[in-house]
């Protein structure tokens, strides 16, 4: 077993060169290079988490904007609906008043017309009466030869007319 057989003559050189090369490994690679490699990893991790945070912030901002837009949109819609409703009400009120005015005008005309008709009828009736009175006087004078006074004839005609 050379490890034991050669121990006396080689242990010092083994340990010496181990210290030299492991020392180089430790100081140059371990202390010099590894921290830089790890720093790169840390940098990347930092970058990734920063990017993720930025993306999240951007998304939150977008959500906020959308929410604000939605609120504004709803307000606008409500306002628009209010305007429409108001216009509708106004229009309805206006047309109603117009209709009412037209109705009153019509009613008035109707009443006037009725009054005129009633007047005409009374006038006609009066004329018919006077004609009937004169006719009755003539008829009596011609048939009976008697002269009937106008009031008496009128009275008789009225009586006859009211009896139908």
């Amino acid at each position, binding site marked *: 077993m050379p490890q034991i057989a050669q121990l006396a*003559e080689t242990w010092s*050189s*083994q340990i010496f060169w*181990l210290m030299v090369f*492991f020392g180089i490994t430790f100081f140059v*690679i*371990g*202390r010099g290079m*590894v921290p830089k490699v790890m720093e790169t990893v840390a940098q990347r991790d930092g970058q990734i988490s920063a990017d993720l945070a930025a993306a999240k912030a951007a998304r939150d901002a977008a959500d906020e904007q959308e929410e604000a837009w939605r609120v504004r949109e709803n307000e606008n819609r409500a306002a628009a609906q209010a305007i429409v409703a108001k216009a509708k009400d106004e229009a309805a009120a206006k047309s109603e008043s117009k209709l009412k005015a037209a109705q009153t005008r019509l009613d008035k005309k109707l009443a006037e017309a009725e009054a005129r008709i009633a007047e005409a009828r009374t006038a006609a009736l009066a004329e018919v009466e006077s004609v009937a009175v004169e006719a009755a006087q003539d008829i009596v004078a011609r048939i009976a030869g008697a002269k009937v006074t106008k009031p008496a004839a009128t009275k008789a005609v009225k009586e006859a007319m009211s009896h139908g």
Partner: protein
Amino acid sequence: MAAEQAKVDPMHQFTIEPLVGSGNWEIAGYNIAFTNSALWMLITTVVLFLFVLGGMKRELVPGRWQMMVESFTGFIDNTLETNIGKAGRKYVPYVFSLFMFILFANILGLLPLGVIGIHPFTFTSHFTITGALAILSFSIVLVVGFWKHGLHFFSLFVPHGTPLPMIPIIAPIEFISFMVRPFSLGLRLFVAMMAGHVLLEVLSSFVIDGTNAGALWGSVVGLPSFILMIGICALELLVAGIQAYVFALLTSLYINDAENLH
């Protein structure tokens, strides 16, 4: 090399040889020959450096290579964070170096480069190396423990809720289990790597000797051994990863003891 010898020596692969002319290098009387083991440490370091360098492009959208390196650092980071907590991050450079160094050493040692004449040397199959790494980890635990908690660190040996009369018995047991840690840490890796390589070498000797003994033995012994070797190779790759992970995981658990006591 083993194949060229009349008899295959499964242990030969662990032999350390000084490379050309460095056999007598010394510092303060200690031999520091640049051996094949040191060469493979160098290769491991260079390959690991190139691997991590490929992940240094620092692109925001990572390529495959960068992703791979980042998944390794992330893996170590996660392990430390689950075991130690937030305070664990400062140990990432050490545990990452440890894990990757062992992982690359294990895997490079398994490469079938023998086919083109280069024989990989798995230095993690030497307890000198694994022991040194284990002691390094253990020292860090001790330093961190005493630095953060001072003498209070000794309360580690008295688990919560231990009845007073039990303390004289529990404390030595805890102390022993604590002191065994560096040995178990170092030996586990060393044994696992060595056992795997010996097994592969023994099976390959079956293949060679069986085939040399003729067509009959070649098909009865050689072929099944060869098929088994392929399976064991896959298993060894798994072991290479698992042992590196276990080493790093246990180190982080021990550091957790030092960092947070119980």
